[in-house]
């Protein structure tokens, strides 16, 4: 059997874990190092370097080296204009399109860069399994974690990265929830838990209730642009001032401030830029950043309908929670000492491995019920958002909205899908624009188009639509506002020299639908046959007509699904159910022909 793993694809570091004999274990390299820095560098000869080696190249070839790319996932060029200047690599992209990162002569999308990191983790895991003497050491499936507060575009970008790396992404799960799974392996655990996750680039707070092995997220909040990186940038600015500098100088300073930051987690003072730097100075400097986590914590508690004292346990996740000021502040907010028994860098990957194990083994001891972090809505008249699925709804979640036409014989409607909490379209995140086509021509206001929004267990949206008067399913063209199309992901997968099998699925589905429609038409014709009432009473078995009708209704229901097997199964069932009827009609036709009369004359 090929292997499944859990992957924490972090802003600063990434790591991979798997479940061995029921317990999750982090996979380390030969020297015992679990962390793969999320850094990718393209050498002059075009060779791609990942991890520690790429990190070292920041000091020698900074412009060809990318880090903290997670901040760019699912983003548009305009979103990152402000921070792009802090990075040594080129950040570009078309207006309104996805960000591009230039390394050397080539440009990459953020999912492609992340795919390099994922492939490195995959390789590391495969080497590890081979060294363990496993017969089939291929790693082809993974659960990948994302910040809980990631929106649809960011989640989709992460899933795309997995696909480009040649991994089947079993599930996208939220980092704080994954951490709680790792902590809650002990099933006796019952109560209310707050997970405070301050990583390299993102901040999440999740409030969970754990009972009977069910990990139910009650509320989540956060900031996908808040983390250790912000502290580094702040310190760098104080050291660098306005001095002119090369990209490599900047990186040298960046590594020095990171070292100083780490030092001050264990000591009261260190040296930075040749002078004494105390923890008190450091804390005064970063206090505003730490303070930015307080608002989301209070909001999550309010959304869960809880007060801080009601929380039974607080769990710390993410490297930035090693900072003493962060720990003190968390303790102040909740009035209790937070847990940190597990390594805050590793706990998320451990939880991802547990979830991967649940998915492939069907182990029902634990169940994770997560929520969607942001409300989902659509644009209505006047640029106002009408919410369809509210934030903190348990996923999977669905919602629907009815649309109609504004002018006579209108056959298409534009729909703009947004994510966020604000009233106005302009203040929310644009997810996608759809054009509903194929509405049958009818007077204005008559069409009743039901658009169904489905958020799956990954927190990713899909949309279907149906005109209720005619029961016609609409064609939806999805144009992700800041994402890659399926074709682009497909091409990147090919580009990345992974073997891709030709995708016949779409064509096979269309063929199955056509066949189903042909059988339905033939059945309807038989039921309308002028002799049918006579046949029904004289020759059909009791209940035979009802059986035909119910199977035909069933086939109609599944006809527009994307599930080819089900459509075929129902098509065959209708064929079987009508076989006798078809024989009877055929016999009558033959008899009528032999007696010189047309059946229609009878």
């Amino acid at each position: 059997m090929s292997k499944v793993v859990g992957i924490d694809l972090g802003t600063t570091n990434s790591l991979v874990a798997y479940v061995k004999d029921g317990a999750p274990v982090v996979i380390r390299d030969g020297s015992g190092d679990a962390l793969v820095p999320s850094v990718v560098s393209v050498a002059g000869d075009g060779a791609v370097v990942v991890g520690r080696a790429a990190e070292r190249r920041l000091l020698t070839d900074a412009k060809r080296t990318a880090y903290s790319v997670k901040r760019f996932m699912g983003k548009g060029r305009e979103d990152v204009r402000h921070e792009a200047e802090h990075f040594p690599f080129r950040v570009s992209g078309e207006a309104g399109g996805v960000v591009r990162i230039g390394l050397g002569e080539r440009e990459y999308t953020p999912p492609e860069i992340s795919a390099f990191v994922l492939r490195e983790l995959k390789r590391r895991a495969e080497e590890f399994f081979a060294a363990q003497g496993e017969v089939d050491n291929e790693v082809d499936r993974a659960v990948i974690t994302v910040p809980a507060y990631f929106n649809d575009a960011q989640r989709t970008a992460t899933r795309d990265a997995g696909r480009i790396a040649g991994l089947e992404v079993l599930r996208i799960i939220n980092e704080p929830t994954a951490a709680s799974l790792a902590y809650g392996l002990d099933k006796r655990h019952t109560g209310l838990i707050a997970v405070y996750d301050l990583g390299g680039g993102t901040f999440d707070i999740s409030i969970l209730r754990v009972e009977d092995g069910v990990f139910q997220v009650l509320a989540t909040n956060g900031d996908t642009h808040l983390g250790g990186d912000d502290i580094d940038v702040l310190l760098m600015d104080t050291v660098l001032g306005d001095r002119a500098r090369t990209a490599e100088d900047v990186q040298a300073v960046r590594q020095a401030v990171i070292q100083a930051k780490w030092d001050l987690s264990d000591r009261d003072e260190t040296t930075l830029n040749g002078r004494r730097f105390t923890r008190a100075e450091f804390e005064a400097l970063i206090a505003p950043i730490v303070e930015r986590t307080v608002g989301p914590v209070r909001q999550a508690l309010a959304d869960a309908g809880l007060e801080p004292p009601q929380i039974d346990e607080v769990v710390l996740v993410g490297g930035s929670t090693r900072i003493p000021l962060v720990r003190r502040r968390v303790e102040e907010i909740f009035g209790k000492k937070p847990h940190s028994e597990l390594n805050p860098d590793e706990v998320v990957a451990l939880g991802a491995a547990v979830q991967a194990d649940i998915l492939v083994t069907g182990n029902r001891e634990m169940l994770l019920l997560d929520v969607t972090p942001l409300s989902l809505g659509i644009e209505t008249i006047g640029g106002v958002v009408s919410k369809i699925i509210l934030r903190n709804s348990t996923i999977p979640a669905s919602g629907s909205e009815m649309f109609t036409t504004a002018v006579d014989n209108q056959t298409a409607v534009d729909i703009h899908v947004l994510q966020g909490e604000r009233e106005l379209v302009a203040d929310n995140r644009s997810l996608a624009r759809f054009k509903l086509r194929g509405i049958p021509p009818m007077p204005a206001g008559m069409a009743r188009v039901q658009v169904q929004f489905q958020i799956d267990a990954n927190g990713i949206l899909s949309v279907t639509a149906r005109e209720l008067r005619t029961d016609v399913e609409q064609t939806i063209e999805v144009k992700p506002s800041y994402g890659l199309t399926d074709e682009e992901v497909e091409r990147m997968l090919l580009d990345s020299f992974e073997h891709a099998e030709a995708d016949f699925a779409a064509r096979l589905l269309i063929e199955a639908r056509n066949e189903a429609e042909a059988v339905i038409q033939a059945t309807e014709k038989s039921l309308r046959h002028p002799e049918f009432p006579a046949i029904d009473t004289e020759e059909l078995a009791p209940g035979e007509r009802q059986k035909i009708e119910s199977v035909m209704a069933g086939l109609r229901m599944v006809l527009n699904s994307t599930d080819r097997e089900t459509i075929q199964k129902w098509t065959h069932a209708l064929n079987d159910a009508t076989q006798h009827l078809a024989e009877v009609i055929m016999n009558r036709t033959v008899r009528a022909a032999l007696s010189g009369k047309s059946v229609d004359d009878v």
Partner: protein
Amino acid sequence: MSSSTTATLQVCRECGAGAPLDAHFCPQCTKILPLGRQGDYFGFLGLPRKLNIDGADLERRFRELSRRFHPDYFYNASPAERRASLERSSYLNDAYRTLKNPAARVDYLLELEGFGAKGPQEASKAVPPALLEEVFALNEELDEVREAREGGAPADAWKPRLERARAPIEAKRAEHEADLGELSARWDALVERGAADSERRAVLESLRNRILERNYINNLLATIARELDRP
């Protein structure tokens, strides 16, 4: 023929067997049933259509059903079963969220029984007759406060007036909440003894009116809060 169709309201697509309306799995082949368009949140969770729900019991039912058809457990199942699991889980989550919240629960029951509000627009625009007096007094007060503010009056001159105007409306809300509690108990008693339609309709009618008034009161309080938030 017709009696058998009312007894088995959904058909298993796997084996063709009939199943009771609120069954989640086929009684014959044990496969998860696709979500039809019938049924309601109460029935789905195995609850009577009552307004007083034991919170702990609801949580237990929610967890138990999540454990039975969450997509996690259908990863290796057929596409049809995966779809059924996704649809059933989504519906369960919706049902749980709606019934957990007392206000949403009443709204849902009214809609289910054909007493739904005609739409949020109408609900917030038309002044319920029972509130005419309060609304008139408040609007007058708001007009004067706005005038004073535009005339440059400091906040501590007009904020106390708004606070005073809020008190009777809050009293009204408390009154309505108590009414709603009492009507809910009456409804539950009717369900319990299988009362006649006419009795049920009378209680539902009162419930709807109280809800519309309560929503209107909440809007008034929100308006006052917005005014108080101004510098």
